[in-house]
């Protein structure tokens, strides 16, 4: 296994008085796809959103513990949230194209960071290609992004996230709003991206985790029950709850 990219230490999350994540300790290796699996409401999404500090956008969320990205705690006092989120991108369950053209959607990230406006067109092209969307939209880059189909919008969101060159890509049930063919498209893009990105995918579809994952984390009622390589976890899980979940008798 390769070097650890993200280390989560003693992470606890409360929403009001509700204890949603309990003492999470985990290591997410660099590159490859790590899948977080578990039934609905077990804290998968909360864990994912704690990794790019999007949790704090919800009022009433309280976080304690550490999330180390390349050895540095992103929750340390004085940490620059925008820098954290630039290095750790997010793909939401539903595509949310920004209210602008296809081109502007991808250019948005580089623009707000004030990066090389001269090369914007190249950046847009490169990332649309990386998301597997370029050939479908290259002739209508100036049309509003909302005119694309849902599957195309999700790939646009992927291109948009990639345009700020994140090291880590968090995907929250990235295919749940898509038809099977679009879903397959997104999955195959993720497979390619894992060569040089750390991809973390939340999914409650076991089949998807089996197809995609190199590493798996299984969560149950706010706890991280078990983590390991996909082969190990799917073939010989240690915890009885993992066994039961994989067998389909719980969750």
């Amino acid at each position: 296994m390769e070097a650890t990219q993200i280390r989560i230490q003693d992470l606890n999350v409360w929403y009001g008085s509700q204890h949603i994540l309990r003492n999470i300790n985990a290591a997410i290796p660099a590159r490859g796809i790590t899948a977080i699996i578990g039934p609905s409401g077990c804290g998968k999404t909360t864990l994912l959103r704690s990794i790019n500090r999007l949790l704090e956008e919800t009022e009433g969320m309280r976080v304690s513990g550490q999330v180390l990205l390349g050895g540095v705690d992103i929750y340390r006092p004085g940490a620059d949230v925008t820098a954290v989120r630039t290095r750790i991108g997010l793909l939401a369950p539903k595509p949310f194209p920004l209210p602008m053209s296809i081109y502007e959607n991808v250019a948005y990230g580089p623009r707000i960071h004030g990066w090389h406006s001269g090369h914007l067109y190249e950046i847009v092209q490169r990332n649309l290609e990386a998301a597997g969307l370029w050939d479908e939209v290259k002739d209508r880059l100036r049309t509003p992004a909302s005119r694309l189909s849902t599957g195309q919008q999700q790939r646009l969101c992927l291109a948009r996230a990639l345009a700020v060159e994140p090291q880590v890509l968090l995907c929250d049930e990235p295919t749940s709003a898509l038809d099977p063919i679009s879903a397959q498209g997104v999955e195959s893009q993720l497979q390619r991206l894992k060569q040089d990105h750390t991809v973390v995918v939340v999914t409650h579809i076991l089949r998807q985790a089996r197809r995609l994952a190199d590493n798996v984390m299984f969560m149950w009622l706010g706890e991280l029950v078990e983590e390991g390589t996909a082969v190990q976890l799917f073939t010989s899980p240690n915890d009885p709850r993992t066994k039961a979940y994989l067998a389909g008798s719980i969750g």
Partner: protein
Amino acid sequence: MRRIAAKLFNPKSDRAGSDPRRSRRWWKRVALDKSAHYTMRLLTMATVGLVPLIAGALLWRAWPILATHRLTSLLFSQAWHPLRGEFGFLPFIMGTLWVTTVAMLLAVPPSLLTAIYLAEYAPVRVQRLANPVIDLLAGIPSVVYGVWGVLVIVPLVGNQILPFVSRHLGALALFRTDNPTGFGVLAGGAVLAVMIFPLIIAVAQDLIRAVPQGLREASLSLGATRWQTVKHVVLRRARAGVVAAVVLGCSRALGETMAVLMVVGNVPQIPRSIFDAAYPLPALIANNYGEMMSVPLYDAALLGSALVLLLVVLGFNVASRLAVMRLVGTN
């Protein structure tokens, strides 16, 4: 729960057709349903019908003046001498436009920023405190704003702002005046601005809040700051709503009567500076209707000006609706 469901769906227990008592009740229910439907439809149609009814009545009563004076001379003549039979609405139309413009300039930037703050930045605690107070502002009677304007705003304009501005910016025609009283366009605009604050804040806030959270998160998770997110994503998406909020405030400002009339000076002239006295259309009607009615055509002239006011506000609303539709269409 399950027992009730079983009773409801069991065909044996449903004897609506055979039991006469049930069937009488059934008829009653249907009758009530139908009468509720038609009563509500009638009331809705009556409300919608009020607009043409009012416009028609105004047109009818204003007809004597429309028949005897050319429309262009009514709308574009400055001469307002009822005793000589000269009725030019231009000073009043310009008075309305001046006061409304100043009010919008004063009101729109701070109220939009307040709306953005409350919708995007403020913690729930602050929202719960601020919003009821802002709503309260909307409930203060117009005449109270007028008194406040006379007691506070007019002396402030006359004693502080006017001397200061004319000392430093007196060279500009916009700030030059021979009216030292403080009663004028600026005082009227300031009072109006405070009156339309709560309306713009409330409407703009609701529409900004209606922008999906996922859009904000999409921008934030690219490393955008909150302000970048608000400016490039939230406001762009809520554009039509913000326009609607401003237009709503503007329509309110155009028609507001009492508070404005108390502080605006009421001199039938075309204002040349923000310190000049003005005489907006609503003030003209409110001050004069019922007096000097023996003057020929005076009554018709006042109702003609009411018609003009109605048409200005209507035109404004239609134009804004078209603008909003176009904006929504491009989104």
